């Protein structure tokens, strides 16, 4: 199969060298089965070793290689060059995040948010080991399973205008993950998570644009998770008015 050549317009940002990001174009010959990440690896190895970006698994599992491809947040390992050819491809760092260098964004804020929703099973009382494991029925697993497929690729944050306007917003992936544990039959941590999820910077900032769910490569549907946490929180709020003594 004959090779074709495609142009990649890649955002470059070298701190202390330039104040604003610039664009560098690379003409890359490519075989039919190359994805955007293959082209970046080719640039890094053969053309310009100074280009920086994150990647690891090349198969849509690790969530490292998220970038803006022609303005859309994508896993660069999952988009084929042939689908864009013969037009040039614009490759930018994920929107809405601070940029460290070239295509590398600062994810520390995201990691703090992930931790803040306590994404682990919280028990009122741990069972002793001798009593065995916490059993779960297929239906109980079904309740949360698809919300647990998140690979922390942050595409949803890049698609979310609310996060773009307010970097303090807890955001789609973190709220969906908190909700995943709220839904888990083994978990008792809903009230504890509410402090973060039910805060002004939690669910209530979301205006249900819905783009997070559109771009999610794992079909986690964080938009649904956020709205359902709103329903649960509002219900509990009304209950706490009607029965103030009933609070856990």
């Amino acid at each position: 199969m004959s090779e074709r050549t495609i142009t990649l317009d890649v955002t470059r940002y070298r701190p202390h060298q330039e104040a604003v990001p610039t664009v560098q174009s690379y003409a890359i010959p490519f075989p039919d089965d190359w994805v955007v990440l293959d082209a970046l690896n080719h640039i890094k190895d053969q053309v310009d070793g100074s280009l920086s970006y994150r990647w690891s698994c090349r198969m849509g599992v690790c969530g490292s290689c998220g970038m803006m491809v022609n303005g859309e947040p994508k896993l660069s390992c999952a988009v084929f060059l042939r689908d864009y050819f013969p037009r040039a491809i614009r490759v930018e760092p994920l929107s809405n995040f601070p940029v460290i260098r070239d295509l590398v964004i600062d994810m520390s804020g995201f990691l703090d948010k992930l931790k803040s929703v306590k994404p682990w099973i919280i028990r009122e009382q741990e069972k002793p080991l001798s009593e065995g494991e916490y059993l779960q029925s297929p239906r109980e697993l079904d309740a949360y399973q698809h919300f647990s497929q998140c690979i922390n690729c942050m595409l949803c944050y890049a698609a979310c205008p609310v996060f773009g306007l307010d970097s303090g917003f807890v955001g789609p992936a973190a709220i969906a993950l908190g909700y995943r544990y709220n839904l888990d039959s083994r978990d008792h941590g809903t009230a504890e998570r509410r402090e973060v999820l039910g805060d002004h910077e939690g669910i209530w900032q979301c205006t249900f644009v819905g783009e997070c769910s559109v771009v999610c490569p794992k079909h986690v549907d964080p938009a649904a998770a956020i709205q359902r946490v709103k329903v649960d929180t509002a219900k509990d709020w009304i209950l706490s008015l009607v029965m103030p003594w009933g609070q856990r």
Partner: protein
Amino acid sequence: MMATRPDPAGLYHPAMPATWWLRKRSYFLFMLRELSSVFIAGFLVVLLLQIAQISSGEDARAAFSAMLRSPGWILFHGVALAFAVYHSVTWFYTTSIVMPLRVRGRELPRWLFTALNIGAWAGVSLVILILYLALPASA
């Protein structure tokens, strides 16, 4: 395209322009959905003012009805209707995501939930229309 904020650590902070919602079709449709509320509330204020005329005598009432017959107000109500219908359809679809109906443990498909709601909406609208025509005028 994006503004800079200087950062001592050398990070580049992109800032979102106020016109972000004009840059993508889905964002624009979202903003239309949100702004439909303005036309709906605007219509309801006009309706309330019209109702208020009833107790202000026949002249005031007739004047208000005459005003609503002007092309400008017909146009306003046409636009408001378009936004209201857009609100209804988007509302039913988003409700299918927020509060899905479960049949034997399975979520109803979103398109089906939306379609059922549109059917119910048509029914409710018909009932209101019939009541409007059938209720006796004297209170």
